């Protein structure tokens, strides 16, 4: 199966982004894999083959993004999907958080998604079809101590997406948010053991989620089965926020 359409996926070199890329390729998308991690991109490209097209880029740099957007436009099938997945954490209690730690997280997670969406959205508008999915977090819904910056960035993605939904709904372009709960990734592996077990005790499903379970939700929202679903926040969290 080949959709003859490109999905731009940020943070696609590893973790949840890599699983999203893998899933989208399996259902026929060409994936423009954007990431700063050149070595991980190369390794993933070797693993996933020709439909995983790596682009090394820093999403805090609009000029780099404009170049990548041009290259993708020239080299790949029309862009009809955007997945804002790239994210970083700089956790610390607010009393001790520096303005740099705040700004860095907002700049990558929220403004980065805005930059990437802006750089590629014209193609979707022109095609009069497509989907934009941003990866938020349950932390954006319920908050987490030590993550004022991260939670603000993830909540910001929701407001951005709902507004953009209103701009693009008439063009057949859907804009949705997936809010992962506690997922097995390098990011969550770094958390202290007591935080992990505290989370686990609050998850009705009594286990952590898998990256592929996020990827499945993203692929559904980007599929032709979900054309009338727009502006939603879909928690994929084993019941954590319910």
């Amino acid at each position, binding site marked *: 199966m080949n959709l003859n359409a490109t999905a731009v996926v940020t943070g696609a070199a590893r973790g949840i982004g890599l699983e999203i890329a893998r899933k989208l390729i399996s259902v026929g998308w060409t994936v423009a894999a954007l990431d700063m991690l050149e070595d991980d991109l190369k390794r993933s490209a070797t693993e996933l083959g020709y439909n995983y097209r790596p682009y090394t880029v820093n999403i805090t740099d609009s000029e780099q993004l404009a170049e990548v957007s041009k290259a993708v436009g020239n080299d790949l099938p029309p862009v009809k999907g955007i997945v804002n997945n790239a994210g970083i954490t700089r956790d610390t209690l607010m009393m001790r958080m520096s303005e740099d730690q705040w700004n860095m997280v907002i700049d990558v997670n929220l403004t980065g998604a805005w930059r990437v969406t802006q750089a590629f959205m*014209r193609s979707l*508008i*022109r095609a009069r079809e497509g989907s934009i999915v941003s990866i938020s977090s349950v932390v954006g819904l319920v908050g987490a101590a030590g993550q004022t910056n991260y939670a603000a960035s993830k909540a910001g993605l929701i407001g951005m997406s709902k507004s953009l939904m209103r*701009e*693009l709904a*008439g*063009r057949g372009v859907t804009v949705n948010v997936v809010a992962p709960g506690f997922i097995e990734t390098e990011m969550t592996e770094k958390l202290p053991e007591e935080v992990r077990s505290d989370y686990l005790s609050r998850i009705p499903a009594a286990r952590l989620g898998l990256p592929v379970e996020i990827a499945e939700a993203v692929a559904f929202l980007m599929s032709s089965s979900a054309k009338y679903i727009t502006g939603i926040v879909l928690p994929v969290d084993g019941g954590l926020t319910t």
Partner: protein
Amino acid sequence: MSLENRIAEIIVSRLNVKPEEVTDTASLKDDLGADSLDMVDLMMDLEDTFNLKISDEEGNTLQTVGSVVSFLKTKGIEA
């Protein structure tokens, strides 16, 4: 190709209208069906094609096909 023809070609492809509908006095919004997103898309196309910047204020004055032509001429674009 004349400036008028180049502009008409952009409008036809962006707004998905017939060439004969693109007359000097045709209103982009009322006659050719452009909504706000179409207008932004069109302005960005004109910027790319003619290598200039169109401010929001300038963009708001471009109501008819003819006003686009005369605006570009005031910017020194002939063809």
